[in-house]
């Protein structure tokens, strides 16, 4: 299986992570996403940053500079109200996609019949 991240899914992962963990910096987010995917995902951690910027431009998340655990300056991302609404919407559409895909994949291919 290709371990590349499907376009659009990274957004939802980021939003969900922020929802469950609260404000996070980029490094924390990357670590958490890799942790949850348990190595199934081949994520160049740098790819995260354009996605974060895109989410910020859509006003789904916001950022501010803060101090990290090891007492260094880092940029922290946080969900906005709009972002919370997006989680619900995206989760629904994602679940729908998954269930539809699931049905297709379980159906035997015509040639096989």
């Amino acid at each position, binding site marked *: 299986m290709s371990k590349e991240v499907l376009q659009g899914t990274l957004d939802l992962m980021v939003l969900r992570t922020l929802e469950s963990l609260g404000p996070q910096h980029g490094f924390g987010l990357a670590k958490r996403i890799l942790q949850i995917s348990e190595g199934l995902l081949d994520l160049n951690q740098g790819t995260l940053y354009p996605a974060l910027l895109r989410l910020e*431009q859509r006003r789904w998340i916001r950022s501010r500079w803060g101090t990290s655990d090891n007492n260094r300056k880092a940029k922290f991302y946080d969900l906005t109200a709009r972002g919370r609404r997006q989680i619900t919407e995206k989760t629904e559409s994602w679940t729908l996609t998954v269930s539809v895909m699931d049905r297709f994949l379980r159906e035997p291919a015509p040639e096989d019949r």
Partner: protein
Amino acid sequence: MLAKLWDLLRYRRLDREMDAEMRYHLESLEAEHRARGLSPEAARLAARRDFGGVSRTQEAHREQRSLPLLETLTRDVRLSLRSMRRAPVVTLAVLATLAISIGANTAIFSVVNAVLIKPLAYPDADRLISVSLASPVMRIDDLESAAYVYLTQRDQSRTLEGVGMWSLQAVNVTGREQPQRLMALRVTADILPVLGVEPLLGRHFTPADDEPGRRPTAVLMYGYWQRQFGGDPSVVGQTVTVDGAPHDILGVMPQRFRFLDQRAVDLIVPVQLDRARVFAGGFGWPSLGRLKSGVTIEQASADAARLLPIAADAFPVMPGFTRENLDGGEWQPLLLPLKQDVVGDAGNTLWIVMGTLGLVLLVACANVANLILVRTESRQRELAVRAALGASWGHIARGLLTESVVLGLAGGALGVAVAYAGVRVLLALGSSSLPRMDEIAIDRTVLLFACAVSLFSALLFGALPVLRHTRPHLAAALRAESRGAIGSREHLRARGALVVVQVALALALLVSAGLMIRTARELNSVDPGFTRPDVVQTLRVTIPASSWPDAEPVARRQQAILDGLAALPGVESAAYASALPLQPGVVQTDLLVTEGGRMSTEGELPQNRAFHMVSPGFFATMGTSLVAGRDFTWADLYDQRPVALISADLATREWGSPAAALGRRLRGGSNRNIWREVVGVVSDVHNQGVHEPAGRTVYLPALAALVVEQPAVVARSVSYVLRSDRTGTPDFLADVQRAVWAVDPELPLADVRTMGDYYGESLARTSLTLVLLAVAGAMALFLGVIGIYGVMSYAVSQRTREVGIRLALGAQREQVLGMFLRQGLVLTAIGMAVGLAGAIGLGRWMSSLLFGVSPLDPVTYAAVSAVLVVAAGVASYLPSRRATRVDPITALRVE
């Protein structure tokens, strides 16, 4: 979208933040790997690996930040620059055409802006007005104001915040090295406050300084202060001797201060008006005021009209006149925005020149559109391929338009450079004929104008290719064999239309230039009333009343100077007069009353006429012929005989003929004026300008008793005229100076010039307009001819195959030639028909600039049409001849 635009504006900061963020990430990863026991070097590499490509991430990040529109724009610009490089000749032709036409428009706009648009350089200048009086019944358009009107307005006006009166007076300034003849501005104390200007140093006049009998004071203009005192600030408190009387220097005006358009003023002195000696009458004082805020000119005029009778009641009538005389004038106030008063009729000339150059720009745009059409045509296939590969209509259109805009802006930038040069030329040509020329600058407004014109032109010439080419006939365009033939008919029609426009505009512009040429010829052929002005030297000498109070000694002294001048080697004849023909300055006028003439028989009101005082021999020196009677003699002067000479038109008007006027009597408007006998009639002289009516002048002896029981009057400031072939040479001028100073070394020489200078200046504005319109016409003709040539060449190249077939089938070469020639001439004819209508409109618009020629002058129209037909014929013939050289065999084999 807005967020992105905002991000774009803080590009650097965001880049720095991004770097910091990624660095933090990398360092954190590195720390983790180290904690797991890797060596620092290995940890760093591992961190890099985990993170992925740093620069790729940065790039992706930046891309996410950027605006797609801007991206495509830069790409389009890059593409168009590349495509321009590929066709350097076309690009250069387009840029040159645009640079010249945009530059010309920008240059003339900078003049229009400085002269007509910019407010005068005073605070709240839109509330400044000039105040004068007019008498429609006496046909006096503008006789300035008068002291009694000024005083009444100053004290009782409800609509004016302030009002002031001024006049110019040439003065002798002595006591510093050489005596100098300077221009003094005499003002009432309120003038500078009304204008709202403050001095650079010291103070300006208080009402106390302006009271009669006070010790005279003066304020220096910046230029004089620099010139004479080297900008020494301690000059305030020193004195300067003006016309023999010491004046305390109160202050210095700032460098930027100009009094209206009077560029020659050196110092300002108070009028010191004596209210006890002010009479109702005595017009000729220019006056200006400031409206109270919120007051309109109409309200102020009504208020001024209300005050006129009050003013007339408040002051005794001028001696020698009756109240009926005064009321008979039916004086009306004439209030104008001060700017209009300063600018005068320069607006006519400027708007017309601006309009014609605007038309040239249109011709240029038509030409550029033509060139671009050809270019785009040859790229037809490229565009079709792009469209086939999925480029949208909008994409292609945007690309084409971007090219035009890039061309337009580049041409505009070059145009600004051209404008800088053009402004210098205009200043050299126009400084003496246009007001406010010293305010001309290429400032922000002008640059904005250049930018707007460039964009406008770009859209204009860019629109046509876009309309023609963004919906390519895909299939046809892609078929190789139909290359070039696609819709060629349509393109030819579009380009034909452009040629029609060009010819039409060229015709209109050439007609306007032609009318100006005719006007200049007419003006040059006018007999000014004097001969060979180039060999008449002039100089002005003033003998101040402070040193020579009595009249007769002044006249003796003037004659002594004249004798000295006449004795100089090479001087044919010499004389002097109070005013010279065409010399700018205040001319003495008075109402003329005659005896037994048409005026008395038909009961006409006396009219205002110029009264010049002249020495014997003046007319002989000037070359003005004596039509009847005799010239003045020195005995007429010193015996103060009541005699006069008049111009031929006055003699004819009053008594029927010059001969009939001899022995008749006339006097000035006052009934205390002495009746004078007409002893001679001289031919009409154009005193006010070649384009103004000639004559209408009464000549008095330079020393004359004018009013009964009053001492004789002498012209204290006189211009000498010397007819000599040495005129203008340095050693002659040195001789002249020595001759004057031999009589009185305290006398400064002013206006040392030639009659030729005055004559040239009186034609200066016509010359300026002529040059500008001729340039515009020539440009239009040139561009038009190129346009025709281009279209005909294109038509010939498109129809090579057809010509080949025709020739193969036996057509004669003359027939082919005729076919193409006809096509070119038909386009020209249509263009000329359209242009005729335009020319008639343009001619009517510029009729105020014309002299002695009708706006519909048939000679001009015929000549211009002939020129255009010949030019168009040549431009069509050259490419057409190429068609006849087609070899049928090769033509048929091509493609």
